[in-house]
């Protein structure tokens, strides 16, 4: 293993070195680095600036000499200066952090949602749900991201914000949304004609009524969940967690999950002093405590089924915590709305400049700025994950050991979650590693459209300005991360799949 890694690393270093010269050379001949100083009609002052910049960029030297100078400085840890005299390492830091903020959430969400939906769609192969998702996945995958972004900005930001001035949902919209929801649920639930019709009807009516109630009660100007919604959602979450992790065959796991949710609700009633203006550390601490409480409850209520009850209760606790978190966010909404002049969804940037509010208001501010770029990135990379995980799951489900597991008499839930799911994830690991390696290079178009100046922006700007040092810094980080993550993928693969041996 060690020898393999060393060999890989050495090869990678040489590859990067060769590529770095090509990138340097390409950037250097990409155009006129003085274009911003051309055509200024003055008494020769522009010429002085051109000369000064030419000296700073060493344009008198051949490209190869400039490259060696850059490489020499790099070996001493100096990334150089851009053509305006700013230090490149000072530019790189904020660019990396902007890209991370923008891309990490979207990538994680895409992986979680994509894998989940892909697996559900594999389990419901050739159902309406599967066909719809296949269609949607190919649709999203083929949409150009800049177009999606511009549409999102127009409809989900500008028009939505305009609508918020007088938030009422028109009756035809309610009807259409109800029908869409009915169709979606019908596809997911599946079953015979009777069952499909029932799910369609129930879902459509519930959705339409819910929307109407929200609209009529003015929920959109002052939203919140309130005690009743928190109770319903938490208990629902408890049932769902039990279904996923334990099943309903025995009573104890469900009891444990419900008890945990109950504890959460009681906490919610008295949470005001703790949660009025917390910080992320406290939220993290509370999440850990919640999971801990879930584990303890599962341990004691679960009895002999504690191995199923503990994770179910923990998940239930986590979910209840999430519901409470959202409830607090929504409570801060109306204050936040008045501070951003009634326009919560932003088309650009990472936050309202100089915004100072409590934890919840700042949180809403981040959400208002991140939601559109995250959605745009999510829609597109999510499609890939759905396809991969569906294919991988289908392959696993047809293997002999799955049949063996079934014939042992294990429930379908156990077969899927315990035996098939984990093995289906192995090929996806490679994909994830590639993806993470690539995202550090920035989402060039998404960054540009949403006014984020991350790695992609740094690269494009350096290229347009014919300014090699920032482009080279981008190359080092992006290229380096791809090399590293590729190697991590190989190692993880060998670790996850015992059939593979490297060396």
């Amino acid at each position, binding site marked *: 293993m060690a020898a393999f890694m060393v060999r890989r690393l050495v090869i990678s270093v040489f590859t990067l070195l060769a590529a770095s010269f090509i990138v340097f050379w390409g950037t250097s001949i990409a*155009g*006129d680095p*003085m*274009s*911003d100083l*051309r*055509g*200024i*009609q*003055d*008494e*020769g*002052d*522009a*010429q*002085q*600036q051109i*000369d*000064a*910049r030419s*000296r*700073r960029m060493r344009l*008198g030297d051949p490209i190869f000499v400039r490259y060696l100078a850059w490489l020499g400085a790099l070996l001493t840890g100096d990334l150089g200066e851009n053509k*305006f*005299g*700013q*230090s490149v*390492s*000072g*530019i790189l*830091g*904020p*660019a990396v952090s*902007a890209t991370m903020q923008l891309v990490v959430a979207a990538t994680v969400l895409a992986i979680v949602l994509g894998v989940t939906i892909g697996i559900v769609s594999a389990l419901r192969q050739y159902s309406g749900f599967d066909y719809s998702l296949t269609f949607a996945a190919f649709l999203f995958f083929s949409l150009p991201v800049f177009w999606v972004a*511009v549409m999102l*900005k*127009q409809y989900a*930001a*500008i028009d939505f*914000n305009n609508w918020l001035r007088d938030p009422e949902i028109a009756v035809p919209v309610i009807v259409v949304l109800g029908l869409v929801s009915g169709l979606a649920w019908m596809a997911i639930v599946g079953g015979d004609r009777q069952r499909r019709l029932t799910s369609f009807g129930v879902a459509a009516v519930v959705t339409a009524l819910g929307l109407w109630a929200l609209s009529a009660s003015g929920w959109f100007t002052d939203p919140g969940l309130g005690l009743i919604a928190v109770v319903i959602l938490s208990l629902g979450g408890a049932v769902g967690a039990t279904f996923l992790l334990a099943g309903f065959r025995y009573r104890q796991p469900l009891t444990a999950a419900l008890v945990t949710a109950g504890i959460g609700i009681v906490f919610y009633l008295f949470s005001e002093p703790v949660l009025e203006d917390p910080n992320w550390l406290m939220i993290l601490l509370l999440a850990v405590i919640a999971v801990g409480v879930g584990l303890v409850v599962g341990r004691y209520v679960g009895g002999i089924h504690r191995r199923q009850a503990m994770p179910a209760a923990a998940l239930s606790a986590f979910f209840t915590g999430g519901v409470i978190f959202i409830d607090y966010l929504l409570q801060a909404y109306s204050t936040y709305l008045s501070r951003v*002049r009634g*326009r919560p*969804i*932003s*088309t*650009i*940037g*990472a*936050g309202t*400049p*100089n915004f100072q509010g409590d934890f919840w208001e700042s949180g809403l501010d981040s959400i208002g700025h991140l939601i559109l770029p995250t959605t745009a990135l999510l829609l597109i990379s999510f499609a890939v994950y759905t396809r991969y995980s569906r294919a991988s799951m289908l392959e696993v489900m047809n293997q002999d050991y799955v049949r063996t597991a079934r014939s042992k008499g294990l429930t379908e839930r156990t077969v899927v979650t315990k035996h098939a799911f984990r093995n289906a994830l192995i090929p996806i690991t490679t994909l994830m590693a590639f993806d993470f390696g690539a995202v550090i290079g920035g989402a060039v178009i998404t960054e*540009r*459209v*949403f*006014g*984020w*100046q*991350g790695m992609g*922006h740094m690269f494009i700007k350096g290229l347009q300005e014919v300014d090699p040092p920032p482009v080279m810094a981008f190359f080092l980080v992006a290229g380096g991360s791809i090399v590293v993550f590729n190697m991590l993928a190989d190692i993880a693969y060998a670790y996850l799949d015992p059939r593979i041996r490297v060396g």
Partner: protein
Amino acid sequence: MTIKRRGVAFMAVTAASALVLAACGGDDDGTTDDNGAPDDNGAAEDPDPDADPGDEPSDVVVTYASEQEFTNYANNTSEGNLLANQHVVNQVKGSFWRYGPDGLAHPDEEFGTYDVVSEDPLMVEFNLHPESVWSDGEPIECLDWIFGWAARSGYFQHPTDTNDEGDPLPLFSTSGVTGYEDWVKPDCELGDKTFTAEYETPNANWVLYAAVDMPAHVVAREAGMSNEELLQAIRDEDVDALLPAAEFYNTGWVMAPGELLPEELIPSSGRYKLTDWQAGQSITAEWNENYWGTPPAAKTIVFRFLDQDQQTQALDNLDVDIIDPQPSPDLVNQLQGLQGVNVHIADSFTYEHVDFNMRPGHYFEDRDLREAFAKCLPRELIVENLIHPVNPDAQVLNARLTYAFQPDYDYQIEGSGADAYAEQDIDGARAILEDKDMVGTEVRIVYTEANVRRQDQVALIRDACNEAGWDVVDAGSSDPFGVEIPDGNFDIAMFAWIGSGYVAGTASTFMTPQACTAEGTGNNNVCYSNETVDSLYRELLQEVDIDAQRELVKQIEAQLWEDLPTIPLFNHEYLLAWADDVEGVTPNPTQHGVTATKHEWERAL
């Protein structure tokens, strides 16, 4: 000098340096332009004697979209001289003047006054406002002024650093030494609020050179000197003592994104001070509470860094309030379709033109052939097809030293000879070509090919001039200024000059170049040379009297229409759009931009 006399003198001075400003020698109403831009002598412009200096600005935020991020507080160094920096420091670093929409220097008398006290030799007296202080409490005074001269005049040379030819570099990095290099070495005493600059030779544009810019006491402190020591080092021309000061001046104010220097390093001398910088996101200027004059209208101005293509939707969503992207027909339509947005479209100080290669041996040395090409140029058609979709009021430009939106334009083109080319004359062009036996001559038009509109311009020119017997070739290049133009490898060069209200800049374009080589031509890419023009310019550059200036400009313009080294086509457009609940926005097509008067921006609540 009485107050009244000073006012008149000031107007004269402003006008004087602007040869283009015609009918306003003694006229008070010289600052309204033709494009509906508000009068720059608005209420907030002049200090209101009744205003209580304790007034506070209203607690609102006005947001401007800037494509480029800030880089440098010292925006008069060669590294820092970017428009993006200028726009941020407008009203942050106070100044005796700023560019108004007419391209002329408008005084800010709250900062100080300055005036000619002697015409021979030319002497300019500066009077800083007695209460003027940097935002850290230090007075603005003589040292700031004299240091400003030292930094920008190129007077001091670096003891060791040289350029490729082995000539010493200036000690202080400067974006240009013009004007300041003509000063007799100035002097004043620490604490002086009044000082006088003397010019070795009269300078028509003296109004632009006021020197006070960066906080010299910060330079002294960072260089480990006292203010007295810094002043003495400048007086004694002690370059070794000045080295650490220059080191700080040249690099100490460069900032990496988001790393705003602490306030003691970047004190403000204007109505705002920089308070916050989020890398890649925004930079914030807040009211400078130590400002001695009328407070600005809005307490907070935010610049958000945003790609031009995204500015329209950001304005629609009110993420930003004021945008000035590059205009295009689609963009203008889109903006005009938005609710609650004001759109302003007018001419800018950038003008498009075609230049004939007049290097020795080139056929365009022959004036008749230049005339033959000028006659076939479809100038009217270019404006109608390519410019009117953006700016319906645009017209063909008939002058090189004056723009159509300036009051002096009609006077300058009257009898200049421009009317001979007002109508396209294909037959006339063909007649000349046939006479010279030059039909079918290849004409390579070199331009920056990335520009779609220029491609269309070439296509229109090709259609028209091929009919007259030329063989026009589209020779678009990715780097015309780096390769073809300096090497003289073109028949016609088509590009735009970025001008200003001050014509002295055109001198380097039309005066005989040092040498007709890649290094020697400077702005005179075509190697045009005419002794009459040279002597007229020499006279103009030292002429302080406005009427004499106007006459000189008129003579130069007429001579240029006679010689035809270059044909002007049209002015580029200036586009500004802002949310209609923002008031006090004055469109400003100069390099200072709309942000020149950001202290007047206000949000109607």
